[in-house]
């Protein structure tokens, strides 16, 4: 009896997690891991990188994001509150005309978007911006 009840409660929590994401709890370690994999744990400067994201995203399905880090070899985008933090990594080649790129991403609720640039000298730069994601009014 007790075990059945516990299983039931467990299932309920799992369903809630799938629905609401519980992102901040599940993700913090994974975010650090993803960053460490890219930077090797190096310090990150806060200048020389620009992240443009809407303050308020009308829908978390399609959030336009732009990053620009002059001189960067690569820029990694992360979503700190998503179930999986990695979003994409732009690796620039010799024919790149700038170190600017934009895309559209998914955000599971209000969270910080993180951009980290790797420079040719092995240093890193970081920019973060909080994005609020709107909630529709209708129930269900």
């Amino acid at each position: 009896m007790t075990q059945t009840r516990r299983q039931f409660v467990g299932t309920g929590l799992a369903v809630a997690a799938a629905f609401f994401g519980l992102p901040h709890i599940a993700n913090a370690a994974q975010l650090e891991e993803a960053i460490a994999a890219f930077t090797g744990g190096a310090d990150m400067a806060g200048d020389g990188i620009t992240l443009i994201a809407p303050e308020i995203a009308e829908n978390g399905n399609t959030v336009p994001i732009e990053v620009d880090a002059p001189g960067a070899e690569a820029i990694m985008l992360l979503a700190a509150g998503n179930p999986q933090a990695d979003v994409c990594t732009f690796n620039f080649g010799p024919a790149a005309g700038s170190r600017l790129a934009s895309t559209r991403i998914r955000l599971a609720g209000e969270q910080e978007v993180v951009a980290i640039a790797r420079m040719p000298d092995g240093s890193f730069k970081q920019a973060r911006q909080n994005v609020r994601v709107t909630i529709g009014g209708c129930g269900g």
Partner: protein
Amino acid sequence: MTRKALLGGVSAAVFAVAAAGVGLADIRTGDSLVINGEIQIVTEAEPPAHLEGALSTLYSGWVFRTDETRAMQADDFDNPGMLYVEQGIDAFNTVMGSEGNSCASCHENPESLANVRPSYPQWDEAHGTVQTVEMQVQECQTERMGMEQPYGYDSQQMRNMVALIASVARGQTVDVAIDGPAAEAWELGREIYYTQYGQMELSCAQCHEQNYGNLIRADHLSQGQINGFPTYRLKNANIVSVHNRFRGCIRDTRGEPFSVGSPEFVALELYVASRGNGLTVEGPAVRN
């Protein structure tokens, strides 16, 4: 007409206490939309006479959206809805049915249909009913192209085709006829518009006539104009038909919606389209 619908006018004073009323405080009006630097869109217009002052200004749904969503509609490459228009173009040129015809066999090119979207739904003499663009496509497919199974009313193929037919009419003024033989359906549509459906007893008018501009949670209620349909909804990541949207709204009242393609929704579409007479066709628009 229902009791609640009749009460609308009488209790206006009381209503003002219960609800905040129309609020455009944090909506940026007065901006214009030009698509691809060439198609002028009318996003604010004088209401048609038949609205009898129910709206002081017509606002396209575009007005209620954020800068980012607005921008996505200003350029066909940025508008994901145009992906479906392209699929519609392929279908337009594809032979379908036993007669060996494609749409292009009769209509040459999609641009030749630019007068369709602004004037639909419209009365169809031969069928003795008001027809939507979807019904017109189905009619072509079954009666002239020899297709046993026309596109489903709300199928992806149908939405692609209707999006194509809308896209070639962008910038043209919506002008659906509501008199003559269409009047009966229009009256039915108006009655539906003011009827409070579902367990939450909500009418179209309560949100989209009396509360547009106000936030419902984080969402700015629009006037519920349909000149941008089929519209690309960020929420669905796909284009959505007018009737599917009607269905979603009645579902959200904890109600039982009418069926997609039903006479009730055709009538409602005619009525809601007529509330936008004076705006311009935008489909496929981009909305949240």
